[in-house]
C-alpha cells in the first residue's frame, strides 16, 4: 500500500507526500485494498467514513483492481493540505463550498469534462472543476419534548420569538456550529447573514441563552436525541436519522432553507487524472443517484424539488463565495458573530 510513496520519497520526487507524516490534521483514515490492485485512488474528504465507505466500495465494485486510500479531515485541514502543503490527492470531497471554490479559483483544481459531468445542472458545477453530487439542507432540529405546550416554529421569526419568550426552558439548551472552527458552520452562518437580518437577531437570542457551540452536525443531532439540546440550529438535515426516535423533529422553515452542495474536485496534484475522472463520473452520473443516496443516505442532486420548493435555496457556486473568505471580511464577521453569540 505504502510502497509507491516510499518509492516516491526515495527518488526524491515528492517531499510532501500524503501519508501519516502529513502536517495537516487527519481525523480518520482507511485503506480499501483489493487483490491485484493496479492503482490506488487517494481521496481526501470531509465526509465521515461511516457514510462514505459504502460509496467507495460501490465504486470499487464497478472498477475492479482499484485500491482506495481514504482520509477524512476537517474542511480547513483539507484546505491546508491542498493549498499550502500541495499534498498529492486524486479526489477532494468537501462540504465547504467556499473553500472548494477558492481552490478552483486560485488554480488548485483540474478541469475535467465528460458526458456525465455535462448532465449536471449548471448550478451544480463551476468551471468544470467543482462538481456537486449532493444537495443537503441546513435545518433546525428540535426535540418535541422540549417544545411541549409550545407551538412548533414555522420560520426563523417564530423561533426567535419562542426562544426569547421562554428563556428558562431554552437556557443552555440551544446548539449551533462554532463558526470559528467549523468551515461548514461559517458557510451556513455567512449565507444566513446574506439571506435575512433575522440571523443576527437569532444569534443574539442564542447568545443570551448561552448557546452551546459544536464542531459537527452529528454531535448536535445526538444531543437533541438525548435531550441535552432542545434546538440545534443549522444542522445538516440529511444526517438526522429517525431510527425509532420520534422525539427528534426537523423544522420546515418557510422563510428560506440554505442548501449546501457537497462537491468533488480533482486536485491539480493528482498523478492519475483519468482514474480521478472515473470517480467524479461515478459520483455525478444521474443513473447512480439512487444507489448513492441509498448507500450513503445523502440526498442526491434533484433539480425538480428545488423548482417546486421556493424556500429551498442552493448556495451558488462562484466568486461570490470568495467574499466571506476575505481575511478582513472574515475578521469582521467573526467579531460580529462573537459579540452576539458569546455574551458576558
Amino acid at each position, binding site marked *: 500500500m505504502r510502497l509507491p510513496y516510499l518509492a516516491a520519497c526515495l527518488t526524491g520526487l515528492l517531499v510532501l507526500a500524503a501519508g501519516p507524516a502529513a502536517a495537516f490534521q487527519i481525523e480518520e483514515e482507511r485503506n480499501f485494498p483489493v487483490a491485484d490492485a493496479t492503482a490506488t485512488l487517494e481521496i481526501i474528504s470531509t465526509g465521515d467514513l461511516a457514510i462514505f465507505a459504502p460509496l467507495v466500495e460501490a465504486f470499487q465494485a464497478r472498477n475492479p483492481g482499484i485500491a482506495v486510500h481514504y482520509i477524512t479531515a476537517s474542511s480547513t485541514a483539507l484546505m491546508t493540505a491542498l493549498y499550502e502543503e500541495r499534498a498529492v490527492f486524486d479526489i477532494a470531497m468537501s462540504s465547504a463550498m467556499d473553500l472548494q471554490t477558492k481552490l*478552483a*479559483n*486560485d*488554480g488548485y483544481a483540474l478541469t475535467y469534462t465528460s458526458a456525465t459531468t455535462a448532465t449536471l445542472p449548471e448550478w451544480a458545477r*463551476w*468551471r468544470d472543476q467543482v462538481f456537486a453530487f449532493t444537495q443537503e439542507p441546513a435545518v433546525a432540529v428540535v426535540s418535541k419534548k422540549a417544545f411541549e405546550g409550545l407551538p412548533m416554529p414555522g420560520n426563523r421569526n417564530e423561533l426567535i420569538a419562542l426562544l426569547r419568550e421562554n428563556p428558562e426552558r431554552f437556557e443552555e439548551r440551544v446548539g449551533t456550529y462554532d463558526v470559528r472552527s467549523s468551515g461548514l458552520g461559517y458557510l451556513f452562518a455567512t449565507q444566513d447573514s*446574506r439571506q435575512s437580518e433575522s440571523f443576527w437577531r437569532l444569534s443574539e437570542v442564542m447568545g443570551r441563552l448561552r448557546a452551546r457551540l459544536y464542531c459537527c452536525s452529528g454531535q448536535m443531532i445526538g444531543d437533541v436525541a438525548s435531550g441535552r439540546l432542545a434546538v440545534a440550529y443549522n444542522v445538516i438535515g440529511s444526517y438526522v436519522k429517525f431510527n425509532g426516535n420520534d422525539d427528534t423533529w426537523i423544522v420546515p422553515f418557510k422563510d428560506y432553507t440554505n442548501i449546501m452542495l457537497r462537491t468533488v474536485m480533482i486536485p491539480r496534484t493528482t498523478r492519475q487524472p483519468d482514474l480521478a475522472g472515473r470517480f467524479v463520473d461515478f459520483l455525478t452520473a444521474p443513473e447512480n443517484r439512487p444507489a448513492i443516496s441509498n448507500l450513503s443516505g445523502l440526498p442526491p442532486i434533484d433539480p425538480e424539488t428545488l423548482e417546486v420548493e421556493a424556500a429551498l435555496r442552493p448556495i*451558488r457556486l*462562484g*466568486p*461570490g463565495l*470568495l*467574499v*466571506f473568505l*476575505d*481575511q*478582513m*471580511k472574515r475578521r*469582521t464577521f467573526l467579531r460580529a458573530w462573537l459579540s452576539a453569540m458569546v455574551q458576558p
Partner: protein
Amino acid sequence: MNQPFKPAISATGSLRRRLIVQLLVIAALLSVVLYVSVSTFARQAAETTQDNILEASAAAISEAARAERDQVFLDIPYSALSMLGAVSEERVFYRVMVDGVTITGYADLPAPEVPPKLRRPSFETTVFRGDEVRVVATVRRITVADETVRLTVLVAQTRAGLAAISLRISIAAAAVGIGFFLVSGTLSWFAARNALRPLDLLAQSVARRGAHDLRPVRSDAPSELVPLLVALNSFMDRLRASLMRTEEFIAEAAHRVRTPLATVRAQAEIALRSVKQPHNRQTMREVIRAVDESSRSAGQLLDHAMVTFRSDNLARTEFDLEELARDTIRGIGPTADLKDIAIRFSAEAGLGKVKGDAILVQSALRNLLDNAVKYSPEESTIEVAIARKGRTARVSVRDQGRGFGDGDVERLKGRFDRGTNVADVVGSGLGLTIVDEVARAHGGSLDLASNERGNGACVFLTLPLA
C-alpha cells in the same frame, strides 16, 4: 460560298471571365473587410463589457472602505465579486492597498503599469497564476485619523470565456464573410451574364442570317455596341453594292453577247439552207449547236443575275402554279420535240395559289425542265406533277436520263458545279443554282433524288402555299 464560315480568330481572354474575376476580387476584398471589422468590433465590445463589470466591481469594493479606529476598514460587499460570476465562470482575484501596502486580497496580484488616477481607472491585460487576466485598478482618497491616504483597489478576472466568445464571434463573422462572398459571387455571375447578353444576342442574330442576307442589322443595341453595329452595317452595305455591281456586270455582259449570237445563229440557218455538201451541212449544224449552247449559257447567267436581284426585294403576289407550269411546259415543247421527248403533266385538284415572284418561279421551272430535256435520251418521257404537301406545293420533275451519278448531290446546287457523269454534255452549272436560290428566296426548298421508277433523276421543288 457554301463552305461553313470558320473564324480565323483566336479568342484572347473572355470579357465575361474578366468581368466575373474582377467582381469576385472586389467581393473577396469586401468579405475580408467585413470579417475584420465585425470580429474587431465584437471583440472590442466584449472587452468593453468585461472592463465595465470589472470597474463596477472595483468601485463597489472601493466605496465599501471606511475609516475606523485609525485604520482603513473594508467590508467587501457580496455583490462586488458575485457580479463577476454572473456572466461567465471566470477566476476572480482582487487586492486592496492603502498607500501601496496590501491590506487584503491576493498580495501578489500585479498592478497595472499605468497608475490609476482619481475617477480614472486604469486597465491592463497581464498573466497571473498561469492565466491571462484583465486587471482594473481604481484609486480613491480616504481620510484616516486626519491623514489622507490612497486606497487602491485591483480587481482581475481571467479571459478564457472572453477568448471563447471572441472565437465564436470570429467564426460567426467568418461565416458571414464567406456567405457574403458566395452570394455576391453568384450575383456577379448573373450580372456578367446580363451585361453581356446584348452582345450574345447581336452575335446570334448575325450568325443566324442566311448566306446571302446582306441586309443591315436592325436589332436594338446598347450604346456601347452602336459603333460596332454601324461599322458592321456600313461594311455590309459596301459588300452588297459590290456584289450588285458584279451581278449587273455579268448580266450586261451576257446580254451583250446574246444579241450578236442571235444574229450569228440566224445567218448560220440561212447558210445551212444554201449549203448542199453533207460535210459542210454537218459543220454548219455544229456551229448552230454551239451558238445555241452559248446563248443558253448567257441566258442562264442573265437568269441568275435576275434571281439574285429579284430575291433581294422579293415580290409577293399570288399566282396559279399550275397555270405557270403549263405555260413553261408549252415553252419548252419545241426543244423537247426535237428529241421526241414527251412531257406528261398532272396537277392535284384545288391546289390553291402560291405567293411570290411568278417570274422567278417560272425561271426556276424552266431551268428544271431544260435540264430534264437536256439529260433525257431521245424518245423518252418526262413526268411533271404538282402535289399538295401540308402547307406547301411540291413540283416534281422525273426524267429517264442518266441521273445524278454517285457524287455529292447537294454540291450540284452550288454555282458552276456540275455532275460527275455529264462531262460529254455542254452546260453552265448554273441551272440548279438558280432553282435553289429561287426556292430559298420563297422559303421553300430544292431536293434532288433518283427516280424511284427506274433510271433517271427526280427533282422536287417545294414552295409554300399562300
